[in-house]
C-alpha cells in the first residue's frame, strides 16, 4: 500500500500494465510530453517511448476507431479522451462500432479496448466540458462501464479494465484527481467488475452514488448520523455489469432508497436503479425511491449556478430525511 492521488493511481496502473504486456499502449491528446491535462500519463513517454505513449491529433472519432482496429488486430489500446464530453464527437465509433463489433460479427472478435477520461463539474469548465456521460453507455449494450470514486478503486478497476477482453468505458472525475488515499501497489491488485462496494454500512436508508457523489453521499451520511439516521452508502463501481443484488439486498434491509449522481436526473441511470429496485423489492419499500441529479439545464458556468444545478450534500441529507419521514 502507498498513499497517492487518484491521478497517480491511474498513471501507475497504466505504467505497470504497459510493463507487463507490450501490447498495451496508450494514445490521446497531449499525453506525451505534457503528460495529459491532468497528469495521468506524466513521464510515461520517457519509459515507453512515443510509439506506445502516442499523441494524437484532435480527431476523437478517428483515434477511437483506430483503437478498435488495433484491438481487433491484437493490441490492447487505452484511449484517453481529454474530456469524456468528447465521446459526443466519436459517438458512432463507440456505440455502433466498438460496442457492437463482437456481437454482430458472431462473437468472433475480442476487443480489449479501454476508453478513459475525466468528466464532471468542479473546474468551471461549463456546459460542454462538465457533463456526465455514463448513462448513455449503460443504455446501449456492448460496453462495460466503470466509475471509480477513490484512488484505490481507480487502480483496481483500471487494471481489471485493461485486462478485460471487452471494451470498457472508464469514467474518471476531474474533481477527484487530487484526492489522496491508500492504494494497493501489488501489480496484480484488481477489483472485480459487477461487484458494488458498500462504502458505509447503515440500516435506515440506502444511498447509491458514483464518482464524486460517493464522497458527497458519505458526507451526507455523517450529517444524517448526527440526527439519528443510519445511511448505507453503496458505490456500484461499475454500471455495466450492475450489481443489482447488493443494492436490492440493501434496500430490503433499509426499506428506503436515494440515488444520487451528477448526470442529469431526467432519464439518468438513477432512474434505472430506482425502477429496478422498485421491481425487485417493492414490498420492502417504506417510501418511494428518490433520485437526485443535475437539473434539466446545460451546466452553467457561474459557480453559484453550477452549485444550484447539481445536488449538494444538503440535498442528499434532505432526500434521505424525506424517505425516512424525518
Amino acid at each position, binding site marked *: 500500500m502507498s498513499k497517492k492521488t487518484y491521478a497517480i493511481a491511474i498513471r501507475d496502473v497504466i505504467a505497470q500494465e504497459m510493463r507487463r504486456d507490450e*501490447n498495451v*499502449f496508450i494514445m490521446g491528446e497531449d499525453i506525451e510530453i505534457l503528460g495529459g491535462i491532468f497528469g495521468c500519463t506524466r513521464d510515461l513517454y520517457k519509459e515507453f517511448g512515443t*510509439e*506506445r505513449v*502516442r499523441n*494524437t*491529433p484532435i*480527431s476523437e*472519432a*478517428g*483515434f*477511437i*476507431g*483506430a*483503437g*478498435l*482496429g*488495433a*484491438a*481487433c*488486430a*491484437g*493490441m490492447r*489500446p487505452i484511449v484517453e479522451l481529454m474530456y469524456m464530453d468528447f465521446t459526443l464527437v466519436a459517438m*458512432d*465509433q463507440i456505440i*455502433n*462500432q466498438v460496442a*457492437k*463489433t*463482437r*456481437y*454482430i*460479427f*458472431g*462473437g*468472433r*472478435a*475480442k*476487443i480489449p479496448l479501454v476508453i478513459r477520461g475525466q468528466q464532471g463539474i468542479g473546474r468551471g469548465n461549463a456546459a460542454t466540458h462538465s457533463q456526465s456521460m455514463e448513462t448513455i453507455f449503460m443504455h446501449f*449494450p*456492448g460496453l*462495460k462501464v466503470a466509475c471509480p470514486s477513490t484512488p484505490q478503486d481507480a487502480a483496481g478497476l483500471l487494471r481489471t479494465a485493461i485486462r478485460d*477482453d*471487452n471494451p470498457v468505458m472508464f469514467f474518471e472525475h476531474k474533481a477527484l484527481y487530487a484526492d489522496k488515499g491508500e492504494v494497493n501497489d501489488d501489480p496484480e491488485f484488481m477489483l472485480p467488475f459487477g461487484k458494488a462496494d458498500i462504502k458505509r454500512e447503515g440500516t435506515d436508508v440506502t444511498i447509491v452514488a458514483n464518482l464524486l457523489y460517493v464522497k458527497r453521499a458519505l458526507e451526507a451520511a455523517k450529517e444524517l448520523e448526527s440526527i439519528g439516521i443510519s445511511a448505507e452508502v453503496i458505490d456500484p463501481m461499475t454500471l455495466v455489469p450492475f450489481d443489482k443484488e447488493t443494492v436490492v439486498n440493501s434496500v430490503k434491509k433499509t426499506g428506503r432508497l436515494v440515488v444520487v449522481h451528477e448526470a442529469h436526473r431526467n432519464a439518468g441511470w438513477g432512474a434505472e436503479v430506482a425502477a429496478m429496485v422498485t421491481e425487485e423489492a417493492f414490498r420492502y419499500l417504506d417510501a418511494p425511491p428518490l433520485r437526485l441529479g443535475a437539473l434539466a439545464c446545460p451546466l452553467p458556468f457561474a459557480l453559484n449556478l453550477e452549485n444550484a444545478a447539481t445536488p449538494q450534500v444538503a440535498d442528499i441529507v434532505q432526500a434521505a430525511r424525506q424517505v425516512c419521514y424525518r
Partner: protein
Amino acid sequence: MISKERASRIYLTMHRIRGFEEQVVSLFESNKLRGSVHLCIGQEAIAATVCSNLTEKDYITSTHRGHGHCIAKGARLDYAMAELMGKATGYCKGRGGSMHIADFETGNLGANAIVGGGIPIAVGAALASKMQKRKEVAVSFFGDGASNEGIFHEALNLASLWKVPVIFVCENNGYGISVPAWQSTSVEDISVRAVSYNMPGVTVDGNDVEAIDEAFRAALERARAGEGPTLIECKTYRWLGHWTGDPQPYRTREEIESWKEKCPIKRYGEKLLEQGFTAEELEQLSQQAKKEVEEAVDFALNSPLPDEGKILEDVFYEEA
C-alpha cells in the same frame, strides 16, 4: 504483372461475386432473404484484384456494399450466403446480415453499415501490424459518398502521420444512393484529396483489372516498405439499384447500359484470351463459380435459424 495463377484467381473471384450477387437478387425477390442488401454487380474487379494481392493475414474493412470484398478476401460462399439469410450457420450466426458481415479468420474486419465507419478501423489494424513489427497491411474499401464523412478525413490524416501500412481504396461509382457525385463531392477526382494528407493519390479505371493491380501493387510496396498510406480511387459503376426495388429516377437507362458495355468480367476475360488463356479454361472457371454459388444457396436454405435462447451470448467475451 499478374501471374497466370493470380489471373485465374481474379477471374474466378469475379465470377463468384457476380454469381453470388445474382443469386441474392433472386432469393430476395422470392422472399428467401430480407433486409438491406446492396449489390456490387459491375464493381467486381476492384475487390477481386485488390484482394488477390493479399493473404488471409492482411486486413480489410468493408462497407454496406460488402459481399464482393468478403468473398474476394477468402470467405466461404456458403457461410456468407447463410449470413445473408440470417441463419445460425452464417459467419455472424445470423446476427449481422448483409450489412454487417465479417470474417475475422480471413482478415475481414467487417462490412460496415455506417458510411465511412470502417476507415479508421483499418488504420488501427495497420497500426497494430506496425507496432507488432508484422508485415501485414490493411485495406479500407469505401465509396465516393463516404469521402464526405468527417471520419474519412480524420482517418487519412492519422494514417499519414503514423505512416501505417494501410491502403485506402475508394470505389467511386458516381453515386451515393440517388445523389450524383457532383452534388455531394466538391472535387471530381477523390484522389486529389490525398494532397490534404501528404500522401500519394491516384485515380484508375475501376473496371480494368490491370490498371487497378498496377496502382495497388505500387501502394502495397510503399506500405510494406514503411512509407505509409496511399489513396486509390477506382472509377466504376453499380449496375443495379441501390436496393432491390430502387426505382432509380436519378439516372437513365442509357447510362446504365453504357456501363454494362464496360463489364469488368467480360473485359478481363477478353484480356486473358489475348494473353493465352483458352476459352475452355475461362468457361471452367465460370462454371466452378456457378457450382459453388449453387451449393452455397443450398447450404444456406437448408441451415437452421439461430437459437433464440442464445440471444444474449457474445455481447461480451467471457472467459470459458
